[in-house]
């Protein structure tokens, strides 16, 4: 192929190669070139996304660590902090869904405990092609099993997530995993190199040939060719990870490590370079000292292997012996593979031979940055101009609601989360399916933490700026519905090929929208991950999918709110301004087969007022239930609250303005439905008025049916048990 230009095979351009030669002052050898290739890959170097990420607000009074470390950290008072991050494992999961998803979980968990935090929750955000296809069902079931088996074995509860199905994800599923950890603020471990001469300890699994060039692989479009030249698939060993986790947390408790760095993408190369570069130091390592799983591995392979469940530790002065003891207790091998130097060079030895020498900073800081061409793709205007008034309004609303409940993207995800241990660690107060976000208590305090992931990618496709705002607003709203104050954001930007101007534009717009919403809502973006080149075989980009993960705080966890209707006679109140919002809705896609239209306007300031109101109401114990309105609209929201409560409701929407289908199924943002006891109605309405949030009583909890009435006409009248069967059974049925 490119016998004369080996860099091309490694994913580097001719121009990048020239820069490398310039930096080195000579032609790099194969080992050196390989190290550059992985460190300068999109995955590690963020060369297309870096110029855009600077739009994100990243600081705030609670932020202890923004982007740049293994994970972001926010203060939650009492000397405690949350450490969290989301990461993609899309391409590995497309090739080997079970191991791809499992190792994705393993990787994100290491990011969290590397910082000294005990992981307390896992979340995941998943996208697949439709379930009427065998291959998609295979991917879906294996990904879910992989995520479950890994997290279950570690004893970290998987408490929330989202799953959507859309044809654009057919060849390229999205698998994003998020982990949240809890740390005492005085035990936060940051990667510092330590002093010159300090040994470098490699701990955990032995190094094999797996995943060589995984980082460059993640930076390419998938093709039939990439399937054949793909690296040997990484296999996860959650048991090893559990031992590593416990051992590393013990090291940090005893303050034995000056620095710790997990081995993720780009393996040893990246972790050694990063450990050394932080202190402006260099490092020398001997590949012969790296414990191997396979005979005959070359320095190139050792440096680039992405074998999982490994960790690099720089000990504190005199701590090596105690560290070895701890690892031994956990049955782990720790090998001294080199030490820190003062010359700023990463020197790879194979015994006495020098296998490669590269300036550390060249790997970590000199990766080129590309301001790619950006232009609005043609489809945008066309979709936006779609005339919604051309859509017939009349319809059998009973049938439409039932069909919406059966759409796999909207139906119950119990088939998924029943495969996840969501209760281990005995902190999960609101479990999956209970509410818009999961809520965990923090033992020894009155506090609770709420967590969620969100992204409506159809919205992001039709209008990435609005869609980006929406993802942040919806995540914040989901937290607020449980009574938790949104604190901060992590995000995973899943897009197509950034070298295509239209894709780059989508990303740029989505980022700006997310940034704007995060600024207004005071939820800084403290960590994240970028996954590009997500495309089908035919070269179509996936729907732009900037997944937002968010954490929130409840001062008093006993005040948490779930979404189930509770008692007969409770009053239903619609909070937030009613807008029809059919553009880009599920209803439009389902009934009219159209993914188009102008999206309902979203105003983060308005969202913020709704959130403040929800928090005050929850804190005063006024909410018996609360559920936000999102996909499927008001009718769907009510149906879900009826189903989870096992009770009916009578709702009269005569007072609301707009077309009927819009009132029922429109997805206008910044709205929620609360149920409150009769005696609290006046107070709640008053508080809403004070908070400048429109609020209207729309009905009451009653009986076993959901009835929606408009102007004396019954639009919907359904038995809750029947709705429940459709909603709960949809995915299970598709999977059996």
């Amino acid at each position, binding site marked *: 192929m490119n016998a004369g230009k080996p860099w091309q095979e490694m994913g580097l351009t001719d121009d990048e190669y020239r820069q490398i030669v310039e930096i080195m002052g000579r032609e790099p050898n194969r080992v050196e070139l390989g190290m550059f290739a992985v460190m300068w890959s999109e995955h590690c170097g963020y060369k297309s996304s870096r110029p855009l990420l600077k739009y994100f607000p990243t600081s705030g009074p609670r932020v202890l660590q923004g982007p740049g470390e293994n994970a972001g950290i926010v203060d939650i008072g009492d000397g405690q902090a949350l450490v969290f991050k989301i990461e993609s494992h899309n391409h590995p999961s497309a090739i080997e869904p079970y191991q791809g998803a499992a190792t994705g979980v393993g990787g994100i968990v290491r990011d969290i405990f590397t910082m000294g935090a005990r992981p307390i929750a896992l979340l995941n955000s998943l996208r697949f092609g439709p379930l009427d296809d065998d291959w998609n069902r295979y991917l879906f079931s294996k990904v879910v099993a992989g995520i479950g088996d890994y997290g279950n074995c570690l004893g970290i509860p998987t408490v929330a997530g989202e799953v959507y199905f859309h044809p654009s994800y057919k060849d390229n599923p999205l698998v994003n995993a998020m982990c949240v950890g809890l740390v005492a603020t005085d035990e936060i471990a940051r990667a510092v190199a330590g002093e010159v001469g300090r040994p470098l300890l490699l701990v955990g699994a032995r190094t094999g040939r797996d995943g060589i060039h995984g980082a460059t692989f993640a930076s390419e479009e998938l093709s039939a060719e990439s399937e054949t030249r793909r690296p040997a698939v990484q296999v996860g060993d959650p*048991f090893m990870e559990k031992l590593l986790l416990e051992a590393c947390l013990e090291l940090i408790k005893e303050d034995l490590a000056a620095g710790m760095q997990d081995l993720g993408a780009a393996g040893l190369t990246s972790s050694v370079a990063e450990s050394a570069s932080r202190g402006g130091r260099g490092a020398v390592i001997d590949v012969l000292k790296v414990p191997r799983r396979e005979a005959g591995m070359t320095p190139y392979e050792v440096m680039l292997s992405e074998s999982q469940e490994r960790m690099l530790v720089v000990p504190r002065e005199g701590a090596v012996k105690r560290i070895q003891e701890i690892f031994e207790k956990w049955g782990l091998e720790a090998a001294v593979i080199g030490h820190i130097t003062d010359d700023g060079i990463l020197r790879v030895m194979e015994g006495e031979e020098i296998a490669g020498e590269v300036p550390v900073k060249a790997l970590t800081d000199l990766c080129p940055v590309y301001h790619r061409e950006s232009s609005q793709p043609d489809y945008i205007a066309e979709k936006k101009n779609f005339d919604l008034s051309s859509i017939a309004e009349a319809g059998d609303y009973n049938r439409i609601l039932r069909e919406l409940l059966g759409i796999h993207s909207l139906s119950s995800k119990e088939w998924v989360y*029943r495969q996840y241990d969501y209760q281990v660690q*005995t902190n999960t107060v609101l479990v999956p399916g209970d509410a818009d976000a999961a809520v965990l208590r923090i033992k020894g305090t009155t506090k609770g933490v709420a967590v969620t992931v969100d992204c409506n990618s159809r919205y992001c496709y039709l209008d990435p700026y609005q869609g980006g705002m929406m993802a942040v607003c919806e995540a914040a709203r989901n937290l607020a519905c449980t009574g938790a104050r949104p604190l901060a954001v992590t995000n995973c930007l899943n897009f197509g090929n950034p070298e295509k101007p239209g894709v780059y534009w989508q990303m740029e717009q989505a980022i700006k929208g997310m940034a704007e919403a995060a600024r207004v809502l005071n939820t800084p973006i403290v960590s994240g991950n970028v996954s590009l080149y997500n495309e089908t075989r035919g070269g179509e980009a996936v729907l732009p999918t900037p997944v937002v993960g968010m954490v929130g705080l409840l001062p008093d966890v006993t005040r948490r709110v779930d979404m189930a209707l509770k008692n007969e006679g409770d009053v239903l109140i619609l909070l937030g301004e009613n807008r029809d919002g059919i553009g880009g809705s599920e209803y439009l896609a389902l009934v009219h087969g159209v993914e188009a239209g102008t999206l309902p306007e979203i105003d983060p300031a308005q969202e913020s007022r709704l959130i403040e109101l929800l928090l005050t109401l929850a804190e005063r114990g006024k909410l018996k239930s609360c559920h936000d309105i999102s996909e499927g609209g008001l009718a769907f929201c009510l149906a879900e609250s009826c189903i989870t409560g096992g009770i009916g409701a009578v709702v009269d929407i005569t007072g609301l303005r707009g077309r009927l289908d819009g009132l029922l199924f429109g997805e206008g943002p910044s709205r929620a439905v609360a149920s409150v006891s009769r005696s609290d109605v006046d107070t709640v309405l008053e508080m809403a008025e004070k908070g400048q949030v429109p609020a209207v009583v729309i009905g009451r909890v009653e009986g076993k049916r959901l009835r929606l009435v408009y102007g004396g006409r019954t639009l919907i009248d359904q038995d809750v048990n029947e709705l429940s069967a459709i909603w709960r059974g949809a995915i299970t049925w598709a999977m059996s």
Partner: protein
Amino acid sequence: MRFGIVVFPGSNCDADCYHVIDQVLGQPVEYIWHQEKSVRGFDALIIPGGFSYGDYLRTGAIARFSPVMQEVIEFAHRGGLVIGICNGFQILLEAGLLPGAMLRNDSLQFRCGPVNLRVKTRDSAFTRCFEPDEVITLPIAHGEGNYYCDDETLKELIEFDQIALTYCDERGEETPLSNPNGSTANIAGILNRGRNVLGMMPHPERMAEKLLGGEDGLRVFASMLRCFEEGCS
């Protein structure tokens, strides 16, 4: 009453059990590392859930060779109270303290969620705080909870009243639909002949506080405490 919680590499419900005994039941409790060669000084032992040795080969198969297990076995033979929960149950089966074996769930999937259970006997150190045939709710979380034993063994389990808990519906009927894993005779928990060893798949420690949805699980530990205070063997 002093509780000991045995910790294997890969145990992950050890801290949850500790929390319940310490904070909710208010009794002294300590971890026992799997390398320990003595369990002296403890009044009851908990073999907690998790994935000892990654559940590799067979659940519980490797853990049962840990040095501490010999001590656990002798402790049980002396009449000491031993409860194995989930992976703990699997370990007790492999160790031969309880009859039978565990197969993969018939769904071939991990199952997490609340189940209804019928308390089949009050005549044990672990169930005396329940009513006879009471229906309770506890969560399960396992991939291999499909209890298997041959007909002979099953007959004996019934004859000697060793079945402690079965999966059932809300009314207490042991229906196939209420069986989450394909377990023989809907078995969720069994006792040894001496009635001082219990293995159960559901997690009582996860249902020991109102905040987490109920207190049925606490009554398992409360039963042990009552037994101890009333001077049962």
